[in-house]
Structure formats: structure tokens, C-alpha cells
């Protein structure tokens, strides 16, 4: 029997290697194996035979782990290397392709810069179009990586063309406020356009949408890291070159910065895909660290505002700041969501997060109240309309999150519902950004 014990241990170790099968699942499968062996034993098989039959019945382990992966794609996110039909083990992990696309993006933005004679001239079209020279390359990279068919290439390209048309055909006068808003929202619209090729030409699947949300968060971490490294590199280069000519560092920054920033967009996308495990460890740490800090900050702020009243201190242009706060809180919620195992019951971390969300909501509702009360006599400007719209979109999302978290913490619903809420909400963000780009400027007469 000892022999069988060691065989079971070996089998167990092998099963446990599959990325999407976690410890509890291995326990469950081992229990099954042992039940089967015990039954075959009583049927008169020797221990060895019983083990072999039981293992055979359990099925091919590669297929099994793929099946687990399909169900628990969140776990799989930890390492996307599955041997088998989904992702054949190949020497190239897309690094070369990523480099080509990164170079192309770098060149495209450089050409645009030279045509615009930036930074001597600062034409509005460059500002509006900047990300149009970069993000389509990321979309193309994913379309290639996901091997989407011709029709889907077309479907991915169509919205990009549409954005380009809308952005360039609208007549913006110089120093137009709507132009600035469009410049800020075009990247957001394009980012959601990337979701389509990223998800392999599907839109409906909630699991794939969650993957895209994760991708967004981790891409952001990588991009910030690359930007920090690049900043240090540029600074040192400038310091080295300064003695040669006082003007040289400036020229270097002018040439290197746009291309570097554009190329890094694609490189970060590639890094998220291929070096998953590094960020996988970072996102939970960041959330654990910052969620309590934000919870404390927001609670204090909400309490202070509630006591002192908002009217005096509140500057009406400050709504943008509260948008930023809500975005950060939403970011924390999404990071922690992507880092957590959905079957785990709610705990202290979830309560702290709920506190942060609720404080942010209270704070925001007070500000909104003041804002709305004043809109009557102040009227809408494009900036105010955009800030207010974003605020409401975020507010609804976080209110839903808070409500569902509460129900989850009380054990009424599964964590899955929270994920569903976020993934169902994704198109609304895209829609809002699209409205700011396409509807807001004509609405305000392009001022």
C-alpha cells in the first residue's frame, strides 16, 4: 500500500502543477482518486491495478487542466502558458512582433511631430490626434496575436477610422475648450476600441471583459514603471550631454520622448501578456497597501466636509478633482477584484474597501449636491458638462459596487455578481467617452 501512497503523492504533485488547479481542487481530485481505488480494491484488484485504472478514469491531465483553465480563467491569468491547443508552446512569445509595432508607433508619432513642428508650433490637431498615431498599433498588435479573421480586422479598424474622422472634421477654433476635452477623451475611446481585438474579436463574454479590465490595470503598472525608468535614463543622458552643448539635451528629449512614450505603450502591452507573474504579485500588494490608506483619507475628508459644510470651501471647477478621486477608488476596487480568488469568502480587506467606496460616495454626493444647486445660475460650460457626466457615470458604478459588496459581505450573493456588475458596466464608460468626443463639441458649438 505504501507503494500506492507514493504513486498518489506523485500524481498529486503533477496535478498541482497545472496553473488553473488550486490546492483545494487537488484535494478534491485526490479524494476522488482514493474513493475509486478503494472501490476497485474491494472488487478484487491489486493496489497497483486499482491505481492505474483510477488514474485512467480520471482522464488525461492536460485536457483536465485545460478544462479547469476554461472555468477559472482568473487563476490562469497568473501564467498564460498552457501546453496544448490553446496556446502552442513556441519559442516566440510575440516579443519580436511587439518590437516591430512599437517601432512603427514610435516612427508614426515622430513623423507627426515633425510635420507639426512641435514643440515650436503647438497645433491643436496634433493634440487631438496624438493617440491616434499610437493606439491603433496596439490594436493591430492584438489583432495579429489573436489571429482574428479579415472581417474582425475590419470591425476593429472601423471605429478607429470613425474616431479619426470625427476628430478631424469638426471645425475647432483656436483655444477651444471642447478641443481640449476631445483630446483628453480620444485615448479613452481608443482604449475601449482595443478591447475588441484584445478579446479576440468578441464583445459579449464577461470573462474576457474581466481579462481586459485586468489587462488595463496591469498595463498601467507596467507603463508607469517604464516611464520612470525612461525618465531616469533621459535625465542622465541630458546631464552627460550638457557640457558638450547647452542645447543638445533639449534636442535629445524632443526626439526621444515622443517615440519612447509611443513605443512603451506597445511594449507594456506585450509585457503584460508575457510576464504575467511579475505584476500578478504586484497588484495585490499595491491594493493591500493603498486601500486602507485611501479609506482613512476619504473617511476623514468626508467627515470634515460633513461637519464644516461644503458650500464655503467648494470651488465649482474642482469637480474634476472629485472625478479623479472616484477614478482612483474605482481603480483600487478593480485591482483588488482582479487579484482575489472569487470563491474566497469576504473578509476584513473587503470591509475596508467598502468603507473607502462609501466614504468616496458620501463625499461626492455632497459635492454634486452643491454643484447641481448652482448649475441653474452658472449655466453649463463644456468642461462642467464633461466633469459632471463623468462624475455621474462613476457615481452610479461605485454605488452599485457598494450595494453589491454589502450584500456579498452579508453572504447574500456570490462574489461573481460583483464582477458581473463591473464587466457589464464597461460599455457605459466607453459610451460616455464617445459622447464627449462626438456629441459634446457640436452641442456647445465647438467653443
Amino acid at each position: 500500500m505504501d507503494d500506492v501512497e507514493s504513486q498518489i503523492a506523485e500524481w498529486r504533485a503533477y496535478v498541482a502543477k497545472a496553473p488553473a488547479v488550486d490546492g483545494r481542487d487537488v484535494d478534491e481530485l485526490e479524494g476522488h482518486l482514493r474513493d475509486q481505488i478503494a472501490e476497485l480494491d474491494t472488487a478484487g484488484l491489486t493496489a497497483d491495478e486499482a491505481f492505474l485504472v483510477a488514474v485512467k478514469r480520471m482522464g488525461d491531465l492536460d485536457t483536465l487542466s485545460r478544462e479547469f483553465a476554461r472555468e477559472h480563467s482568473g487563476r490562469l491569468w497568473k501564467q498564460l502558458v498552457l501546453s496544448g491547443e490553446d496556446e502552442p508552446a513556441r519559442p516566440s512569445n510575440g516579443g519580436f512582433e511587439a518590437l516591430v509595432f512599437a517601432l512603427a508607433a514610435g516612427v508614426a508619432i515622430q513623423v507627426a511631430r515633425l510635420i507639426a513642428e512641435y514643440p515650436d508650433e503647438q497645433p491643436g490637431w496634433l493634440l487631438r490626434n496624438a493617440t491616434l498615431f499610437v493606439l491603433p498599433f496596439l490594436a493591430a498588435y492584438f489583432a495579429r496575436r489573436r489571429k482574428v479573421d479579415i472581417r474582425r480586422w475590419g470591425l476593429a479598424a472601423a471605429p478607429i477610422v470613425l474616431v479619426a474622422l470625427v476628430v478631424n472634421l469638426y471645425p475647432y477654433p483656436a483655444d477651444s475648450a471642447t478641443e481640449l476635452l476631445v483630446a483628453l477623451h480620444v485615448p479613452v475611446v481608443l482604449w475601449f476600441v482595443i478591447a475588441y481585438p484584445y478579446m479576440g474579436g468578441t464583445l459579449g463574454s464577461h470573462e474576457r471583459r474581466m481579462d481586459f479590465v485586468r489587462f488595463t490595470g496591469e498595463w498601467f503598472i507596467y507603463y508607469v514603471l517604464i516611464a520612470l525608468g525612461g525618465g531616469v535614463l533621459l535625465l542622465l543622458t541630458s546631464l552627460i550631454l550638457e557640457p558638450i552643448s547647452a542645447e543638445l539635451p533639449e534636442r535629445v528629449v524632443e526626439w526621444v520622448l515622443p517615440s519612447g512614450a509611443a513605443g512603451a505603450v506597445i511594449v507594456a502591452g506585450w509585457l503584460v501578456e508575457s510576464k504575467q507573474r511579475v505584476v500578478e504579485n504586484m497588484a495585490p500588494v499595491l491594493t493591500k497597501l493603498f486601500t486602507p490608506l485611501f479609506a482613512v483619507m476619504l473617511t476623514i475628508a468626508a467627515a470634515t466636509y460633513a461637519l464644516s459644510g461644503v458650500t464655503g470651501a467648494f470651488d465649482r471647477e474642482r469637480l474634476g478633482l472629485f472625478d479623479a478621486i472616484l477614478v482612483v477608488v474605482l481603480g483600487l476596487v478593480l485591482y483588488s477584484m482582479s487579484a482575489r480568488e472569487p470563491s474566497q469568502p469576504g473578509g476584513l480587506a473587503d470591509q475596508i474597501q467598502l468603507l473607502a467606496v462609501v466614504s468616496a460616495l458620501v463625499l461626492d454626493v455632497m459635492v454634486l449636491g452643491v454643484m447641481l444647486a448652482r448649475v441653474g445660475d452658472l449655466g453649463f460650460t463644456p468642461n462642467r458638462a464633461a466633469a459632471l457626466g463623468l462624475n455621474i457615470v462613476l457615481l452610479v458604478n461605485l454605488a452599485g459596487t457598494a450595494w453589491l459588496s454589502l450584500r456579498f459581505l452579508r453572504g447574500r450573493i456570490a462574489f461573481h455578481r460583483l464582477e458581473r456588475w463591473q464587466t457589464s458596466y464597461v460599455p457605459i464608460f466607453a459610451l460616455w467617452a464617445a459622447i464627449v468626443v462626438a456629441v459634446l463639441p457640436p452641442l456647445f458649438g465647438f467653443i
Partner: protein
Amino acid sequence: MHIDKDLVAASATPLVLAILGESENYGYAILKRVRELSEGELEWTDGMLYPLLHRLQRLEYVTTEWRTPPEGRRRRYYAITDAGRAALAEQQRQWMTVTRALDDVWRGNGGLMTALGEV
């Protein structure tokens, strides 16, 4: 008789839900019950039951709990929820429709079998 693998896959969810509708149970016993019910004709790869059960759990059709019965080892028990019962009822309706349609066409004159024979 060999049952087509797509058919096995399609029937897996209603079967498991129906078995859990009888009483809560753990994986190995569910499989034994499947064999019993189909008189050994439905061949499942044992391991595949578990991803299926986890999917049902995610959909909130079943709840699970680890328990150690007085005699025997620690096992994960699955129990059907109200949502699971509703899904089962829906599956039942669909399967009834399919089997009724097949039944009708096979019993009727010049039914599916003759049609297939002419191809």
C-alpha cells in the same frame, strides 16, 4: 453502445443538477449515480466532473461545503440552490421538447431515419 461525446457533454449539466436535486452529494458519488442511472452507458471522464461542478457553483446553481462525515474522509459536498432548481426545470423543458420532436419524427412515416437512408 457508444454515445456521442457532444451528447454526453450536453446532458452533463441537467444530469448533475437532477442528481443533486435528489440529495446533496460529493463528486465521486455523483459519478457513481450517473453510471447507475445510465446503466454504464454514459462514459464520463471522471476528472471533467469537477470543472463542471465549479461552473455550476459560479452560476450559483449549487453551493459547496467541505465536511468530514463520522466515518470516512473529508469531502466537498455540493447542494442544489433555488436558482439551480429553476435551471433544472428549464433544462427539463428543453430536453422534453427535443425528445418529443425526435420521437414524433421517428415514429411518423417517412421519418428522419428514411430521410437519412436516402442521403
